[in-house]
């Protein structure tokens, strides 16, 4: 039998249509997803505002104008002013910073913790796996908001006392800024609530990919473990992780708002959308715009992240790659 005769001819159809790079392929898929593209626009805007917000705002976020307290939206104050005469629009722009910082930092922390715990559980198995799964179960069994309140109530006072001591000892002005205590507590609580999700996702990914045929095939070809991890396991675990992070960023922002609403979030003077919502709620019958501004922003961003996450899920889902 000659080579020509055994040349298969069954390679037309889906294969011909898409001879490009895999990531480009996924990107093209994402770009073709209308909801995902619509979702990207507010997210890009949010990051832009978070970086350049202070240069864009017509007023300082603390600037109080007692002559224009609780003013209705006008050309001067686009979204009106609050009860202290502060410009709501400016505060929303500043709030983008809080939202982005909270989203990025808490997601980063929980992702790192989740990656370490999840990988350990997935690779090592046995007792380590049982311990990690038990820890995630324990953490998840506690109501998230209750956990945040408990953390805030029990840790805030000692932490502030410690900061004061450090200030007295070092005379370093940094330790006088109690807003750091708030941030640390909020980030910590968010990370504590979110890491089990990432840990379980990564553990599951590793367990499933470790038993894939291509990993066995790579081992049968004598590839070293490190190379199998970096070339085979990790890239194949990325898809669901990217999707989870996208959704997690939005989720962290909403959660932070909920914290602020309950008074355990980022405290003034840094504007936070959650705090603005909870303040606005007291007067929503008479001054609904105080509530509407931050609430609408929050909703747009959350929906955008959800759409982007869905789009990423579709774009990165190997089952849709054909073949």
């Amino acid at each position, binding site marked *: 039998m000659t*080579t020509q005769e*055994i040349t298969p001819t069954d390679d037309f159809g889906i294969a011909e249509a898409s001879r490009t790079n895999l990531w480009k392929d996924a990107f093209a898929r994402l770009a073709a997803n209308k909801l995902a593209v619509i979702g990207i626009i507010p997210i890009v805007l949010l990051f832009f505002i978070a970086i350049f917000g202070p240069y864009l705002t017509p007023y300082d976020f603390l600037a109080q104008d007692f002559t224009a307290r609780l003013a209705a939206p006008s050309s001067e104050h686009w979204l009106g002013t609050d009860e202290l005469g502060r410009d709501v629009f400016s505060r929303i722009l500043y709030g983008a910073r809080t939202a982005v910082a909270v989203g990025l930092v808490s997601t980063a922390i929980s992702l790192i913790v989740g990656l370490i715990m999840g990988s350990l559980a997935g690779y090592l198995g046995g007792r380590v796996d049982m311990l990690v799964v038990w820890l995630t179960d324990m953490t998840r069994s506690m109501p998230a908001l209750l956990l945040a309140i408990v953390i805030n109530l029990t840790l805030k006072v000692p932490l502030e006392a410690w900061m004061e001591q450090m200030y007295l000892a070092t005379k370093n002005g940094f330790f006088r800024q109690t807003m750091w205590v708030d941030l640390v507590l909020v980030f910590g609580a968010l990370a504590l609530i979110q890491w089990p999700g990432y840990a379980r996702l990564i553990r599951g990914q590793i367990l499933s990919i470790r038993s894939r045929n*291509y990993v066995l*095939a790579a*081992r049968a070809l*004598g590839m070293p473990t490190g190379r199998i991890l970096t070339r085979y396991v990790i890239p194949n675990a990325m898809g669901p992780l990217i999707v989870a992070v996208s959704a997690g960023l939005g989720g962290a922002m909403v959660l932070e708002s909920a914290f602020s609403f309950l008074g355990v979030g980022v405290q003034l003077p840094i504007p936070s959308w959650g705090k603005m919502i909870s303040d606005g709620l007291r007067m929503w019958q008479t001054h609904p715009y105080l509530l509407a501004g931050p609430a609408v922003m929050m909703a747009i961003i959350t929906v955008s992240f959800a759409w982007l996450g869905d789009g990423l899920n579709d774009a990165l889902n190997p089952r849709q790659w054909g*073949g």
Partner: protein
Amino acid sequence: MSVLLDVQDLQTRFQVRKGYVYAVNGVSFQLDQGDTLAVVGESGCGKSVTMLSLVRLLPPAASIENGQVLLRGEDLLQLNLRQLRDVRGGEIGMIFQDPMTSLNPFINIGTQMAEPLIYHRGMSKSEALARSAELLGMVGIPDGEARLREYPHQFSGGMRQRVMIAMSMSCEPAVLIADEPTTALDVTIQAQIVELVKELRDRSGVAVIWITHDLSVVAGIADRVIVMYAGYIVEEAPVDALFEDPRHPYTVGLMGALPSLAGETGTRLTTIGGSPPDLVDLPDFCPFHPRCPYAIDRCRKENPMLEPVIDASDGGHRAACWVDIREVELEAGAAAGSV
């Protein structure tokens, strides 16, 4: 011909909740240079576990309890992981059942094919890619250089199996272990893959171990056949002797389940009733006796050893059975009948 691979008394078991499952129980066989050995048996008979044991690619629950795997006299079971990696892919190539999932979807074919060449042969990336393109041509994939830039999802099942074969053969191994490489493919593609392996074998002189449950494939490719049941070799013979003069009831049963072009139309294929046992204990009886139409009392009390058969047409013909099945007349329809 010299003995290339000599497997002695290999035993592998799996740890399960209640103890152990004995998957491979004292398997011994030899493979000569350039020889093709077929390993047949139902699913769950220990064929794949035996082959994975040779290069210690077992899942964590499995452990090799005993035996030697001598490749040119060197025991693979005693090697450290680094030495073992040189054997895997370098001396022993493997291809697997499901080509659809045997390639990493995230790396293009070229990079994937180049890796073993870079790792085992110390080639540069460009050398390895050039060699990979050649290899693709060798396994019947034209336009190799362009196809190296493509990803697995752009290849069909048959093409992927060709890529797998090219990869496993890339470092010119002495042994190619093919674990049911055609099971997941269309019949026409199956024949092409069998032809391809034969062609590569004849050209390179690689010794092939071909695991299958398809006896028609065995007849086409193998020199010798091992029939496995419940982790034991129950019959071993040159391929012609096995087909003409099978001596183990299980082999007879497998052949009865094979459709024949020469047979009369309208005849029914026989099946072997029941399924292989879960070996949670090493049996002190013949593991096939519950399904065996020839079973006698001794089969329930003693497990037969693999021994040379009487009146063998070939010296290498061995079987593990207490009964000389040629002397037993079965009632019509009872052959390999229900349990």
